């Protein structure tokens, strides 16, 4: 029947084949259009990274050359060890790694305990506590910053790493929120079965919930590590001894003293950013999952 309609010269017969072809063309156009916009955008997004590395490898002459040099020649790898010589990079790296590791341990232990309480123990008032936790996310940190400093200085903790580490052992609203959402997905039957077998909460927590929650705990660890690694304000306020600085702080002071040594500044930035990017490539899925969970289950 359709063949007859075609032969009669009717424009675009309503055959399934034609409709599918039209849909395919439309889809093809949409895909092409998307790539047309996404590709240049992606190039623009990558450009600063490229420029950072390119500058880091330039000689003095080429950094300030005009027109701009895109690919330096020669490749001055020496900028990297030179930059490190200008400020105690390895020392700061060790300091930062130490603080970050401690904070991660604190965050994972405390937040999982609290999340367990909010998700797996049925008690009156737990939802109130949860909403309170979420509400505190909206308080600007400046409000608590000054009194905390005053308190810490009364304890004599200013100038040590303690103010940067200890708070993470007392939970953080954001991570508790994430973990609580995750714990709630653990089937209740599992927990009930354990309870019937006479397991107490600590045992359920340690032997059932924690092992199942490894992906979520890993996410928390990753985010806490990233937060502490890149934290600038905390070290700025509490660290006075330059031997105790973190990499972020060190880089800032380096820049203040050597403002025009761009190639060395870029080299230092590359070394500061590099580990995180590498870490990210190994843990991409965890990262992305964590970010999405924050935005969606609100």
């Amino acid at each position: 029947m359709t063949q007859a309609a075609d032969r009669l010269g009717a424009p675009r017969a309503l055959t399934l084949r034609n409709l599918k072809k039209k849909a395919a063309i439309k889809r093809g156009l949409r895909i092409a259009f998307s790539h047309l916009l996404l590709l240049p955008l992606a190039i623009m997004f990558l450009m600063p990274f490229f420029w950072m590395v390119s500058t880091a490898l330039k000689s003095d002459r080429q950094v300030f050359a005009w027109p701009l040099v895109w690919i330096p020649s020669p490749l001055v790898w020496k900028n990297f060890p030179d930059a490190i010589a200008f400020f105690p990079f390895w020392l700061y790296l060790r300091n930062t790694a130490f603080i970050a590791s401690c904070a991660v341990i604190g965050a994972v232990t405390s937040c999982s305990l609290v999340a367990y309480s909010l998700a797996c123990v049925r008690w009156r008032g737990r939802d109130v506590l949860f909403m309170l936790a979420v509400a505190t996310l909206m308080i600007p940190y400046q409000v608590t910053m000054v009194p905390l400093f005053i308190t810490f200085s009364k304890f004599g903790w200013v100038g040590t790493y303690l103010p940067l580490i200890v708070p993470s052992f007392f939970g953080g609203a954001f991570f508790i929120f994430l973990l609580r959402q995750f714990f709630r997905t653990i089937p209740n039957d599992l927990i009930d079965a354990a309870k019937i077998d006479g397991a107490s909460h600590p045992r359920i927590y340690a032997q059932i919930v924690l092992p199942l929650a490894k992906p979520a705990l890993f996410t928390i660890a990753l985010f806490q590590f990233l937060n502490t690694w890149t934290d600038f304000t905390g070290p700025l306020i509490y660290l006075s001894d330059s031997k105790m600085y973190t990499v972020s702080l060190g880089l800032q002071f380096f820049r203040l003293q050597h403002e025009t040594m761009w190639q060395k500044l870029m080299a230092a930035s590359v070394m500061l950013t590099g580990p995180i990017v590498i870490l990210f490539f190994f843990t991409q899925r965890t990262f992305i999952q964590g970010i999405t969970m924050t935005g969606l289950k609100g």
Partner: protein
Amino acid sequence: MAVSSVGSSVLSRAKTFGMSKLELKELLWGLLFASPWIVGLLAFTGWPILSSLYYSFTQYSVLSASKWVGLDNYATMFVHDDVFRRALYNSTYFAIIFVPVGIVSAITVAMLLNQKIRGQPIYRTIYFLPVLVPDVALSILWMWLMNPQLGLVNSLLWELFKIQGPGWIADPDWSKSAVVLMSLWTIGRSVVIYLASLQDVPQDLYDAAAVDGTNWWQSIRNVTLPMISPVIFFTFITSMIGSLQLFTVPYIMSAGDGRPAQSLMFYSMSLYRNAFIYFKMGYACSMAWVLFVIVLIGTLLVFRSSSRWVYYAGG
């Protein structure tokens, strides 16, 4: 153990608390597990908020005892302190520009990414990468990129569009826009969130809209945007709060003092300087509370308006 004997004697009194033995047991366990957070809330949030309020009515330099001055700090702030007004203006200016631009950009990119194209994960990674760069490195990198004479931004503007780029960070009129531009590089975090929520929008709705004969813009307006409006709501609030609090980037770019010509003196920077450079802790606390109130009002306004534009798909 002493704990369990205390515990069992408490449990036997359960009835007096108006709940069953089981309820009381669960309550105690719940409190125990949550205790780090409860302690933390009291010690690191509750108590500091209250003392911050107290200090805001005092003059306190940590070196000497605090002196009660009533509303003097607040009066000085609004009447005498030019830096305060400048700082408030700068932060608000930045927030007003960046929040909407950031959200629109992020949603647009997310919608482009949502087209079921090959390479979507690669694009997503590329857009997300800048989020990982530490603030310090980020600021220094962009200072170099936006260098008026030698920076990549201005030279590309000239090579590609024959536009003479502005002085960016060096120019008081452009410095905040420079911060906006730099912050736009890090919208990847929001893009990831929007992308996930876009993927949750049921295809049936689009199909139904197509049957009704809507074009692409209409289906965005009537299907996509309403369905992701809760997420927009969330990112709007967090973006607003984050923008008003912004500290590290302007601090580093302006070498700590808001140069050029105070154009980068953001609110949090002024607060920091008052507290840790001038040792006016009381004054800094009053600034913090003003910020808090502003954030609360802003959040409340968004909440109020949300009933009109946020659509919860519910079941």
